[in-house]
């Protein structure tokens, strides 16, 4: 079965100010959809709203997972469905090692916790016994670190604490590889990367897409699209999607800038 995420006429407000003004978008597994738009157009707001950030209030419209609304679900429940957000600015959690964090996350998303609870017959289990077995986890983590070109020393470092911009983005790709989402939203995963890091991050995304992941690639520049080939490109402007088409749109934007979109929009409204 192919999982589908649909956003329909989505309006989102932050602290009373409407940022998204009716977004429609469909994402499915195995598909790469690039979302381009100028700063402040609401791209990140949309990614937070889909992931379930409590501060982003959906005032109307809906977000559907295989046809069912997920607006009532908390962020962790959405992650368990298979939705992943690669953050533009990953948050540091001092004192928590990358490996321990990831083991807890993987155990939760893959249902180890629920199974442990069910086995205990609703009773209480020893804390820690509901995690993915350490040996299995470690093997998989090391294999994926190698496959996604992430240094093995990451495992013991504190999550995003003191990471360079590039390291953070690579860490996000590694998390994505471990959590195996159905649909990932990548919020400017290319920003702040040098050319080598951009290549590594892009290759990671490509591998996961080849494995069946759907990706919404939010970006400012056409640059990453040289590495990750989108099936569709949409242009985001002032809180809504104003244009959708094939890869050619990205090239147009690159050549003519967002002014081109503004002009088109002005003409359409005139």
């Amino acid at each position, binding site marked *: 079965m192919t999982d589908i995420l649909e956003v329909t006429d989505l309006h989102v407000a932050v602290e009373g100010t409407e940022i998204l003004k009716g977004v429609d978008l469909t994402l499915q597994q195995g598909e790469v959809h690039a979302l381009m738009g100028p700063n402040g157009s609401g791209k990140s707001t949309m990614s937070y709203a889909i992931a379930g950030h409590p501060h982003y209030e959906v005032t109307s419209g809906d977000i559907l997972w295989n046809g069912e609304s997920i607006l009532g679900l908390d962020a962790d429940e959405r992650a368990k469905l298979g939705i992943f957000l690669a953050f533009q600015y990953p948050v540091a959690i001092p004192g*928590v090692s990358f490996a321990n964090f990831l083991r*807890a996350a993987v155990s939760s998303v893959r249902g180890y916790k629920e199974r442990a609870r069910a086995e205990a017959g609703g009773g209480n289990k020893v804390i820690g016994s509901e995690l993915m077995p350490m040996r299995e986890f470690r093997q998989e983590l090391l294999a994926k670190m190698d496959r996604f070109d992430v240094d093995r020393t990451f495992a013991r470092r504190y999550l995003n604490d003191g990471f360079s911009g590039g390291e953070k983005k690579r860490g996000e790709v590694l998390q994505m590889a471990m959590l195996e989402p159905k649909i990932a939203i990548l919020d400017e995963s290319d920003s702040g990367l040098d050319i080598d890091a951009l290549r590594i991050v892009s290759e990671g995304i490509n591998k996961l897409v080849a494995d069946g992941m759907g990706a919404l690639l939010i970006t400012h520049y056409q640059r990453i699209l040289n590495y990750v080939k989108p099936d569709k490109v949409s242009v985001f402007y002032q809180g809504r999607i104003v244009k959708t088409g094939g890869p050619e749109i990205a090239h147009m934007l690159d050549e003519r800038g967002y002014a081109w979109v503004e002009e088109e929009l002005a003409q359409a409204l005139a």
Partner: protein
Amino acid sequence: MATEVDRKALEGIKDEYEYGWSTPEDYTFKARKGLDHDIIDQISDMKGEPDWMRQFRHKALNIFLSKPMPNWGPDLSGIDYDDIYFYIKPTDHTGESWDDVPENIKETFDRLGVPEAERKFLAGVGAQYESEMVYHSLREEWEKLGVVFVSIEDGLKHHEDLFREYFSTVIPPTDNKFAALNSAVWSGGSFIYVPPGVKLEIPLQAYFRINAESMGQFERTIIIIDEGASIHYIEGCTAPIYDKDSLHSGVIEIIVKKNARCRYSTIQNWSNNVYNLVTQRALAYEGATMEWVDSNLGSKVTMKYPAVFMLGEGAHAEILSLAFAGKGQHQDAGGKVVHAAPNTSSKIISKSISKNGGRSSYRGLLKVGKGAHGSKSQVVCDALLLDSESRSDTYPYIEVAEDDVEVGHEASVSKIGEEQLFYLMSRGISEEEATSMIVGGFIEPLVKELPMEYAVEMNRLIQLQMEGSVG
């Protein structure tokens, strides 16, 4: 690194851990409630002590009775001296039955995975928990090196000269009201002597030779580390310990001689009915290092400020203090460092967490005396508040009598960041688990100083304490 022998012994410990019961003593004695000179005589008679100790106890009782209750800290008005047994032989604890142990304590044992055999002891209905085989094989090794690690009673009985040379020299009964109380009625605790140059890799754990007495109310411990020697002593365990006795008042005296090193780690997790008022102090001589790793998770009220007096040039003190105050708890913890010699250095790191209306305070003294040229000290206090009803206070006292010293004090109070929570939750981690993960990260700098098995248990414990604190 641990030696091969150490490693074997450690492996053995895990196996022995679950079966380490020994036959309880069948002798019982319980003094009546309340405290007066007759009780002191009864205690001294029971223990068969030399006369000088009996006289010491009587004098200490007079000091206790003459001192007012301290009123500068937490509320102690709930202590009723007339309603306390000041001396109970360990077997009397077995008079209670497992059925009397509160359900929440039993459930906590389940969640922490505490072995069956330990539970009764921790719940106060078993008299002793001794990991016999392992403890004895370690003890033989220690004895070969000349290390003395015995109960405080055996210390007085079999090493009286050494005992008398140091007993009460670091903390005299006049020090404070509770030191006086302990001096009058002390019972249980450890007596440790480490000969010059002996460095022990495996921590000495009170847990191995503990009985209800030494876990008890008025523990007295003396540790003497001779020149160039080094040990790590661990007191307590991470599992909660249930005790219906409401007042605990320990005294820990440590002497760290020239170039010696001592680390003393405490994990205090008394049940929430206990007033835990402890005086612990170390003297550090030339080039010596003293480290206190002090974690306070349980009790109703704790007042504990581990101290290091640096008496010799180049001595170093380190105090890591962790306090976790939940509902109805007041953790008044901190540390004292006194620089009384040149080029001494100290570091105090305090981490406190308050939730569900709990209150934690950092109370610290940093004193640089006359003549302590070139000394350095750094104090860092971080507090984490989990909700708006909880409270955190800082009472740092700094006295500096010299100019050419470096003294730094930093304090911060923070709340759990929403962005941190959202980030973790977006990875499928529940809000509750995310919160305890962030708390675990907050105290990690301290937990990593504990031996591995304690660190693992400590993280479980924090997770358990965090449960139900969200929403």
